[in-house]
Each structure stands twice: as C-alpha cells, then as structure tokens.
C-alpha cells in the first residue's frame, strides 16, 4: 500500500499534439493518500479511463511523472507496479476453476502453495464465493464473474492500489447495490488504496471518502461527497452531481452585488474578481416558496416519490425547486426564495464567492 502522486501529468493520443484540445488529459496534479477510498467521477470521454490506465501502467503518459511512495514508476510495466485492476466487463480465465482464477496472480509471482491456499480461502470468504471454488469460471453469472475479477485484485496483500473501471456496468440493477456495499466492506477490511472510476454519481458518492470530479481532461474538484454537494467549485460539479442538478442561472455582477432577472440576490459571501461570464448557482433543495421574492410562474410539477420537483419560470429562465409536502398548481404565480447561505456566484464556470460569516 502506498501513497500515489501524479505530478504534471499530461497525455495525448495524437503523436504531435498541437493545441490543448489534442490532450485527453490536460494537466493533472494529484495526491492519493495511502488507504483512501477514492472515486473518479466524470461523464464518458472526460479522460478518467486514460488516467486510470496511466496509473496502472497500461499507458505511458506523454508528460509528467507517477510516484508510488515517492518512488518514480512512470516507466515501469503494470506487473512491476504491484497494482490490481478490475475492468468494466468481467475478465476471468474461462477454462480455470474459480480457485485457480483466484490463485493465478499469486502463482505467476511464485508464491508458495500453502500461502496461496490460505489467501484464496480468505478472499473467498470475504467475497462469499466459498461454495463455488471448484466451479468452472465460465459457468458463473455475470455478478459472480465480476466478484472473481475483484478477488484476483485483492488476493495479493502487497498491492499498492486496487483500481475499478466502472465495474458494475454489466451487473443487473438489483445486484448492483449488493456488490457496491460488498466493495465498501472490503475496503474497510483490507485498507488498500482504492480508486473507483465511474460516471454514476450514486456509485461514486456511496463508495468513496474522496471524490475526484473530472471534465474534459481536467480535475474540477476534489472533495468529500458532502463538500461536492454543498459547495461545488465549478458549475459542472453542481450540475453533474445531484438530482436534479444545481440551477445555473445567468446573472449580472454590479457594484459587488449580483442580480438575476433584474432583481438583487443575496449571496453566501463577498464576490471575488471581476469580468468574465457570471452565473448564479443554487441547488433546487435550497429554493423555497415565500410570500415575497422573485416572481415566477409554475410551468411543470413532477412527483418523483418522496418529494416533488417544481419548475418555475422567472422571466425566460427556468428555476427548479425541490418541495416536500404541498405543491403549487401548474400555472400558479409564486414567489421564490433562494437561501443566501447556499447561493453562489460563478465566473467562467469557477466559483467566485467567499464563504460567508
């Protein structure tokens, strides 16, 4: 187990990258603490799989270095990095039994048989696959196959990091939560550094202590699930995380204050900087109906179970609000209130208000 440092990492699949757009990874500087549970979250094509393959050694970055416990491993092949990786589709050795599958990484490294048997038994117990150890791996169901590929990653006790590349993609929905909680439990037991790549916010937020959000080859925010939810550093994070995502509304900055549709809006704290394109960010959870405030007309009400999502028009801009209990009718005239503590200004996408008193 080790601390992983990515320093000045850039990668391009093009042989001669010209502009920033040629880079799949633009500039990454990151520290992954020893024993942490991390999620790498972002939409398809944001570069998260590229980053993962660079850490595992399947790709050599165009620029920059990777350090495991301050040792440079940038040039090392995957088998010398002591890492484990679980792929999107279960990769198992079809012709072997489950037991041989689990023992495979150890046998390849010349571990003695007694030790192998002990480790395999341990891992099988953790994964609840003890009763299928002698089954041919090709006969397993997809979720069990994926368990075995995870097991192959965990069976070595000297791994620096275990990486998961969207491991639940092919798993049936009703089994997903089971495997997810299994993973969480495994992390608490083995305390290995784990990196979990996904585009699904629920998976990321339930698994990880720290979530790294990526967009277009850049890291936009690193934080705990609560931090990402409460104080997105970038409108992308606000929009991508949460359901529905944060309201991002066009705003005008004047005299140290922000106005939306011509009306002043109270913010969490002081505005920093000048110029650029400014927007307001407020989560639907913090939009309430009030007797006075922004005038709006209800356009759509959708009942999503425990609460309702109300979409109201302020001028020509739609604002969403999450409402528990009674909801106004469609077409009704209402007043909206933004909780100041959770209302922020963003400049060119990045946060531009200070934390208030």
């Amino acid at each position, binding site marked *: 187990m080790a601390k992983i440092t990515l320093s000045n990492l850039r990668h391009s699949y093009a042989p001669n990258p010209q502009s920033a757009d040629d880079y799949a990874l633009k500039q990454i500087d990151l520290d992954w603490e020893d024993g942490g549970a991390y999620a790498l979250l972002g939409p398809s094509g944001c570069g998260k799989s590229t980053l993962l393959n660079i850490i*595992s050694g399947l790709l050599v970055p165009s620029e920059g270095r990777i350090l495991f416990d301050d040792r440079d491993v940038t040039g090392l092949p*995957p088998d010398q990095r002591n890492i484990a990786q679980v792929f999107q589709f279960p*990769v198992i*050795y079809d*012709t072997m039994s489950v037991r041989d599958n689990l023992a*495979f990484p150890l046998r390849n490294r010349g571990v003695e048989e007694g030790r192998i048997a002990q480790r395999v038994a341990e891992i099988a117990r953790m994964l609840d696959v003890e009763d299928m150890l002698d089954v041919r791996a090709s006969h397993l169901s997809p979720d069990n196959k994926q368990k075995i590929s995870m097991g*192959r990653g965990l069976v070595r006790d000297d791994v620096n990091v275990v990486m998961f590349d969207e491991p639940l993609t092919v798993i049936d929905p009703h089994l997903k939560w089971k495997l997810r909680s299994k993973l969480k439990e495994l992390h608490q037991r083995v305390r290995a550094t784990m990196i979990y790549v996904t585009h699904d916010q629920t998976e990321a937020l339930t698994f990880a202590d720290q979530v790294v959000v990526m967009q277009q080859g850049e890291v936009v925010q690193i934080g705990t699930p609560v931090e990402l939810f409460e104080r997105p550093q970038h409108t992308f994070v606000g929009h991508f995380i949460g359901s529905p995502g944060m309201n991002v509304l066009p705003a005008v900055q004047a005299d140290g204050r922000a106005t939306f549709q011509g009306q002043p809006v109270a913010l969490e704290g002081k505005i920093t900087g000048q110029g650029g394109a400014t927007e307001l960010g407020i989560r639907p959870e913090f939009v309430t109906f009030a007797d006075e405030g922004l005038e709006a007309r209800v356009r759509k009400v959708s009942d999503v179970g425990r609460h309702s999502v109300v979409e109201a028009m302020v001028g020509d801009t739609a604002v969403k609000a999450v409402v528990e209990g009674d909801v106004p009718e469609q077409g009704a005239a209402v007043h909206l209130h933004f909780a100041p503590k959770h209302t922020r200004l963003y400049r060119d996408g990045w946060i531009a208000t200070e934390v208030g008193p």
Partner: protein
Amino acid sequence: MKTENAKAWFFVLPVLLLVAFNALVPIMTVVNYSVQETFGNNVFFWQGLDWFEQILRSDRFHAALGRQFLFTFLILIIEVPLGIIIALSMPKKGIWVPVCLVLMALPMLIPWNVVGAMWNIFTLPKIGLLGYLMNDVLGIAYDMTQNPLAAWITIIVMDVWHWTSLVVLLAYAGLVSIPDAYYQAAKIDGASPWKVFRYIQLPKLKTVLTIAILLRFMDSFNIYTEVFVLTGGGPGNSTTLLSIDLVKIALGQFDLGPAAAMSLIYFAITLLVSWLFYTLMTKDDAK
C-alpha cells in the same frame, strides 16, 4: 427466443429441393449400384452386400485408406499449429494487415488442378525452381516421379501451401475479437506469454479452431484433383489416396458395383470422423 413456425418450411423448400436433387438421386444411384452387378446393357443382378464385404476385406482398400488417414493426419498436425503461430505473430492493426490477408488467401482461390500443375512446374528437375535448387544447387537428389518419399513430402508441402491460410484467417479473426481488457488483466496478473496463450487466446480460439479443423479434415479427406494432377497417384501407388483409387476403379476399370460400395463406405467414414471431431471438440461446452 425462436418462434415456432411451420410455414418456415416454405423458406427452406428451395434449398431442400436443390440439394435433394443433387444429393438424394445420386446417392440412391450409388446405393443401387452397390448392391448389384452389371455387365453392361443395363442388365443388373442382385448382389446383396457382397461388394461391401469384398471392399472391406481388400488390401487395396486398406492401403488407400491408410494412406488417406496418414495424409490427413500429417497435414492437420502441420497446418493447425503453423496457422495458429502465424496468426499469433501478425500485428492486430496496421496498413500491412489487409495486404497480408489478401496475399495469404490467394492460394485458396486457385483452381485445384492449376494448383497441381503449378507445383508440377515448380518441382520439375532442371526446369522447376524447387527441383533446380534441390538437385543442382543443394545436391540433394529430388525427383518425385521416382521417389515415393519425395512425392509424399511434395504433396504435403503443397497442401500446407494451399490451405494453411484458412487456419491463419480463421485464427486471426478469433484473435482480433479478444477484447484488450483480457490482455491488460493478464499483464497486471503477471502472466507469461505462454500463459496468455494457454488461458486467454486458446480458449477464445476454440470455436474458430473447431471450424478450421472440421473443414480441413473434410477437404483433405476428400482431396483428389491437386494430388492427381501432381503425382497421378504415383510413383507406383505410393500417393494413391482414397479418392484417386475410387476414380481409378469407377472410371478407369468401370467396376461400378465395387466403386459404389466403396463410395458409401468412404462417405460413412467421413461422416463418422467429422462427428467424432465435433463431439470431442465441443464436449466441454455441454457440461
């Protein structure tokens, strides 16, 4: 999944009629001959299973059958591993891959008697490139019209030349379809190249190899034209394979009864061995 539909028979009917016309009538003719004796003039005498007995007991048939099995066995153990090795050493992508595949497929598209003629020209002493190289440059006496061993080596090399590409093409198609994740996982698991082959590539190649081996078995077991054009079954009877012997009996000696009985035995052996191959190669899946 599939729906029950009796009308589907109408879809199959044209195929059924055409193949039946080509298969059933001739097979019936063969069966008919196989149990009768004729001296021409369309006069037939009931012969029972005498021809079958005679064929099954004849040394000539045993010898031809033995040669046939030896030939098929040799080309299978050469072509299948060689084809796999070549497919494994081809790059997965690249501008040269399609060029290579086209060149490799070329021998399979040459009419079979041209293949025989081409190898004849190629191996002639003094005139052929191979014949010249062996006799005049390397000083190895090589003349397949005189020496049975030389004749055997020549027909084997010819068949390897002609058909190994089929195994290459099939195996290559199988290899390309293996997702990258398997190779990456194997790298991370620290697997050696041999283990990658044994536990990833070979299992994934099983389906295509089954097809390749079956096709190579059927076609090599039925081989006639190439060998006939090249050696005529000689020197002596040393390269008289089953088909060549059959045609000699049927058209050369016009012994229709024995030829028909031999045809049926021949066909039955082909079916039986194909079925055995198929069952053996797919038995793991059934478990």
